[in-house]
């Protein structure tokens, strides 16, 4: 890798890191679109600064972008407060108006007779990280250091402000000043990122890492750190791909580009963070789609196991203490389950030593009988409560009990036991109470 590529990689990862951390707060406060307004509203500021200063003066253009960006956000706030425009509409209006003005100004500059073409303002729209120089890195490093240091310093204040602004204000924190500081930092990062990532996609660098990090943790500190890391990694990988470095590693060009540095950096970085986001959505523990599907499947499997044991118990209940085997056909007639499904459940229960297969069908083992007795008792207690405590008709309770009983926790069961014991029911005591309704064949159909 060349020295220039290193510059670009360091710059974009710094930017990704600080944007990710700051953006997390925006995501948590449901202000994700504010970053979008900031970056789009910065474009006319860049152009105006170019016109006023008569050339491409870096700090001057940043200042211009900073001013119009903040003006855009302030305008949204004012529109919401003083006219009856709703926030989403106000965001949309301000964003596109400022962006339109910016595009108009930049084409005016492009068409100016002298020096206009050198402005290269179009790179601010999609970003061109390849143009970064050492001074840009210093600027980015300075901005990142100041912002990250302030976040560490004021972490507790920003935490309470983000979670509960009214409480923070009642406690005496200057919430308006903190809000402005947060918005100012957001603007600073956005403006610093414009040359490399561009107006259109800067918002994504703010939002996506935070949204992805939220999937992995339930702690704010960890979310901020992770979001910074994800942002930095996306920035680095994105700029490497954009700079054509991947070709050097792989020995061939996966994107089929003739010359290097042909992909605009902003879009590539954003697609990289989107890949990270999709990965998080899919595989994150607990919150991810796969984890949730797996939990759903486990609940279904457990429900099936419990239904099998209870059905076996109900079939053999009157012959106790002899535990008779129940034929598969009998079981099939009792509940709405398929032959394949039933065979699978029986195999699962057999594997756990709860039932055994006999020539006549399926038979509860000793531990299986104990477990089945416990389950049936819970089921009937719940039914008993529904009938006597919640006034639900006896011919409806079985279905209602079925849908909830598999989720009853030990505390609720204890409470039910206590109420049942206190009632005058003849079954109160240790045994499994009789079913409060007729157990018919196929009565369990949905």
């Amino acid at each position: 890798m060349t020295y220039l590529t290193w510059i670009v990689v360091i710059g974009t990862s710094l930017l990704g890191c600080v944007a990710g951390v700051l953006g997390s707060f925006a995501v948590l406060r449901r202000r994700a679109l504010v970053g979008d307004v900031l970056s789009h509203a910065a474009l006319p500021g860049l152009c105006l600064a170019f016109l006023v200063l008569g050339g491409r003066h870096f700090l001057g253009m940043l200042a211009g972008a900073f001013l119009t960006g903040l003006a855009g956000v302030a305008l949204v706030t004012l529109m919401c407060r003083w006219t009856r425009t709703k926030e989403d509409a106000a965001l949309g209006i301000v964003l596109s108006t400022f962006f339109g003005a910016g595009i108009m100004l930049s084409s005016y500059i492009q068409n100016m007779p002298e020096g206009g073409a050198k402005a290269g303002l179009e790179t601010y729209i999609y970003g061109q990280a390849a143009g970064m120089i050492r001074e840009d890195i210093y600027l980015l490093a300075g901005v990142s250091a100041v912002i990250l240091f302030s976040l560490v310093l004021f972490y507790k204040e920003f935490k309470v402000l983000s979670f509960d602004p009214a409480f923070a204000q009642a406690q005496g924190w200057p919430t308006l000043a903190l809000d402005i500081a947060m918005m100012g930092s957001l603007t600073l990062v956005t403006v610093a990122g414009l040359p490399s990532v561009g107006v259109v996609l800067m918002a994504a660098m703010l939002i996506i890492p935070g949204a992805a990090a939220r999937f992995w943790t339930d702690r704010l500190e960890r979310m901020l750190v992770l979001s910074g890391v994800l942002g930095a990694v996306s920035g680095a990988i994105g700029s490497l791909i954009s700079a054509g470095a991947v070709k050097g590693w792989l020995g061939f060009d996966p994107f089929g580009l003739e010359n290097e540095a042909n992909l605009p950096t902003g879009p590539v970085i954003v697609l990289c963070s989107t890949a990270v986001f999709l990965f998080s959505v899919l595989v994150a523990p607990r919150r991810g789609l796969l984890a949730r599907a797996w939990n759903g499947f486990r609940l279904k499997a457990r429900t099936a196991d419990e239904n099998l044991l209870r059905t076996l118990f109900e079939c053999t209940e009157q012959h106790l203490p002899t535990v008779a085997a129940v034929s598969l056909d009998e079981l099939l007639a009792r509940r709405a389950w398929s032959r394949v499904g039933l065979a699978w459940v029986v195999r699962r229960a057999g594997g756990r030593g709860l039932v055994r297969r006999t020539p006549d069908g399926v038979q509860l083992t000793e531990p299986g009988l104990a477990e089945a007795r416990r389950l049936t008792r819970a089921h009937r207690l719940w039914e008993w409560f529904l009938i006597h405590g919640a006034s639900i008709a006896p011919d409806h309770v079985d279905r209602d009990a079925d849908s909830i009983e598999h989720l009853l926790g030990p505390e609720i069961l204890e409470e039910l036991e206590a109420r049942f014991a206190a009632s005058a029911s003849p079954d109160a005591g240790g045994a499994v109470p009789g079913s409060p309704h007729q157990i018919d064949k196929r009565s369990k159909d949905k």
Partner: protein
Amino acid sequence: MPAPPVEIHDMTVAYHRKPVLWDVDLILPERKLIAVVGPNGAGKSTLIKAALGLVPLASGKVEIYGEPYAKQRHLVGYVPQRESVDWDFPVTVLDVVLMGTYGRLGWFRRPGNRERQQARECLAQVAMEPLAGRQIRQLSGGQQQRVFLARALAQDAQIYFMDEPFAGVDAATEQAIVGVLQQLRERGKTVIVVHHDLQTVRQYFDHVVLLNMRLVDAGPTDTTFTHENLQKTFGGRLTILDEAAEAVRRGKPS
């Protein structure tokens, strides 16, 4: 005579120019459990928020022990409505309760072991200590309310403002909250509670503030919480005030 815990002079509050509270004059006694009662839209929450400086006053002033709120913040604890925050926020129960200590800590200082210990004690008072490490989304509504109460206890205040702490909670939580309120009173605190359940006012509260856009009456529950006063508070005789407020909002006569 020492200054009363809360003294409100001629308070008028308006949202978007529409007045929601008119000329409220109120002095609240010390060491009492005080219910703020009134129909929907009567300005109960607004009264509390205005006292805490969260909404601007159109006129009037609020004094806490004889001084403006800004000076006396450290004496005041606040329990906002449960719905006012995002319960999916990535913090634990203990984190939320620790926020109660932030006011005392001041700028930059982080909560340390002492604050943690104190937060755990506050959680224990509302029977939530075993759940200290839970993410707040995993709590039931009643448990969330108890976390908010514990956070206010961690503020270690003299006066507590609570906005509908009994709204939508289970019986166990209601008992836990009532227990905490009584302990607070025994320790000499004053507690002002926006309350919506008329059935329990007499049972839980010593003092009552009846509110319907203006102050209807305030005083000890025994003498103030009367049928006649409730008629005045909840009866439909306020159409004129309502219409006047609407006219002010529109900026032209109705």
